[in-house]
């Protein structure tokens, strides 16, 4: 399941949805708003999304992960709106019988979400005008 939300993401609430007796390996990823990017001090991030399409694209990413990896379940949530430093912008959780497939699937999901889901972010800087981030290859980068 992929969900777009305007409310704060609570790890404990989401993690509960992945608990099941078959799950021996659970992997979670949180992408948080950080206070710097490319040498600039960042004050906040404003996310905008094409919500109806984002939901479809995100659901397809989860479906693909469930068929490509030996996992039992996977969830992803992405927030939109104006977020402050430290807020969770994206959350991914995967459960599997063993850790390897859970790690691989989690990496797959976050990479695909960052490269395909129609979500944009505007960085608001401590000094200087706000700017839309144009990251063409986010899925290949290591930043959150």
């Amino acid at each position, binding site marked *: 399941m992929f969900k777009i939300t305007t409310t704060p993401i609570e790890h404990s609430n989401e993690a509960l949805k992945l608990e099941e007796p078959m799950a021996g390996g659970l992997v979670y990823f949180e*992408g948080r708003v950080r206070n710097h990017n490319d040498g600039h001090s960042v004050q906040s991030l404003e*996310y*905008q*999304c*094409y919500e*109806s*399409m984002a939901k*479809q694209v995100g659901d397809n990413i989860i479906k693909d992960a469930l068929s490509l990896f030996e996992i039992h379940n996977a969830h992803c949530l*992405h927030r939109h709106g104006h977020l402050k430093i430290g807020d969770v*912008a*994206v959350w991914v959780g995967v459960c599997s019988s063993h850790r390897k497939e859970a790690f691989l699937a989690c990496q797959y999901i*976050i990479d695909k*979400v*960052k*490269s*395909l*889901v*129609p*979500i*944009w*972010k*505007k960085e608001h800087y401590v000094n200087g005008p706000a700017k*839309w*981030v*144009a*990251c*063409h290859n*986010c899925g290949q980068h290591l930043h*959150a």
Partner: protein
Amino acid sequence: MKIKVKYFAAMREASGVNEEVINSNAINPLELYKELKEKYPLFLDEKHLKVALNEQYVSFSHPLDDLDTVVFIPPVAGG
């Protein structure tokens, strides 16, 4: 032919509108985009964009139909 065009992020700011209905004879998104770029010169070059037709990614040469919804997708930046 009437095409609904929705704008997001930098393109929303460059156009000043969230969406609009365009009367166009464009046969595909590439032709439509060229028309829009004349109207909004600040729009990115199309090589930086993807295009969604009725909420599905398609190629810039995909045929357009009356009442389609088109979104030119600037580089996404989720996460």
